[in-house]
């Protein structure tokens, strides 16, 4: 199929204003015909200095409005501009493909309609988390889930690895609105985690800064205090390993026999 005029690239400015944006990302933004943005309002102001036509998608949220509807409208806005023949850039804070379904869906739809569309990585919230908290995800392994999905579906987790639960502020949300959930939902989450961890197991809430003048928020507390923790819409829950790794002697023996060690 011939590639049509009009294109879409989704990029990420990273998490902190000024600190994380690549030169390539900046060039995408400045060279675009139109830029759609879903970032913190201050970040959007900054992005607006790079292109004369930057349109915020944040206005599509509504207090009691289904977030699914909002995301569909975001996608529609991107696609319409592409159909109009524009070089479209979608800017989504952090990494555009990490815990962000709109960029993936928009790129897929644009490609299905015959347009060139792709995604470029940015510095994501988890990259900042590893740096700020001194966590190497390779040391013990790392499981990463969206909190509500973790609650809605049965999963077996590995307590010998890190567990990171994203969008903690929407934990157990059934309303699908932008509102935050509260201690009742976090009590349900706590009880799920108590199947794997002790009540006094230390866990942390992490929040990445978005300005270079800010410090990350890292609050440690025992698991049993999760319901009353200070949570916001940008909170992430970090649960360190609660058990030691168990060696797999049989497999190591097999591997040694292969290598002759």
């Amino acid at each position, binding site marked *: 199929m011939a590639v049509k005029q009009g294109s879409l690239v989704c990029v990420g400015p990273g998490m902190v204003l000024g600190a994380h944006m690549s030169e390539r990302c900046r060039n995408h933004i400045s060279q675009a015909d139109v830029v759609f943005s879903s970032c913190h309002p*201050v970040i959007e102001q900054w992005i607006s200095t790079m292109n004369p036509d930057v349109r915020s998608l944040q206005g599509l*949220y509504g207090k009691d409005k289904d977030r*699914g509807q909002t995301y569909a409208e975001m996608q529609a806005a991107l696609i319409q501009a592409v159909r109009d023949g524009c070089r479209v850039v979608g800017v989504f804070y952090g990494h555009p493909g990490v*815990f962000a379904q709109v960029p993936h869906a928009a790129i897929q739809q644009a490609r299905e309609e015959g347009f060139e569309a792709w995604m470029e990585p940015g510095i994501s919230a988890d990259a900042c988390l590893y740096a700020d908290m001194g966590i190497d995800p390779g040391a013990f392994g790392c499981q990463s889930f969206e909190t509500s999905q973790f609650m*809605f*579906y049965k999963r077996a987790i590995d307590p010998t690895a890190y567990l990171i639960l994203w969008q903690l502020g929407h934990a157990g949300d059934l309303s699908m609105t932008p509102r935050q959930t509260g201690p009742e939902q976090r009590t349900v989450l706590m009880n799920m985690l108590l199947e794997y961890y002790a009540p006094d197991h230390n866990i942390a809430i992490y929040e990445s800064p978005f*300005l270079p003048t800010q410090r990350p928020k890292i609050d440690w507390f025992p698991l049993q205090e999760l319901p009353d923790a200070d949570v916001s819409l940008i909170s992430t829950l970090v649960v360190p390993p609660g058990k030691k790794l168990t060696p797999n002697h049989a497999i190591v023996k097999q591997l040694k026999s292969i290598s002759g060690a």
Partner: protein
Amino acid sequence: MTAIKILEKLGVDPNSDLSQLTEQDRAEIEALMTSMADTENQPALTIVKPDSPDEEEPKEPESVSV
């Protein structure tokens, strides 16, 4: 320099910090943050809906006499 440009400079240069700013620069940043205080930020971009629960509980297995 506008507050945004000041913040950008702070972000880009790891050796610059608030203490190096003039009073005017600090006031610009403060004014920006005050104007943003009531602005809503919606960071969530992923949504998960639960499947509907099964209507019936699984049946208990029949007991077998030995």
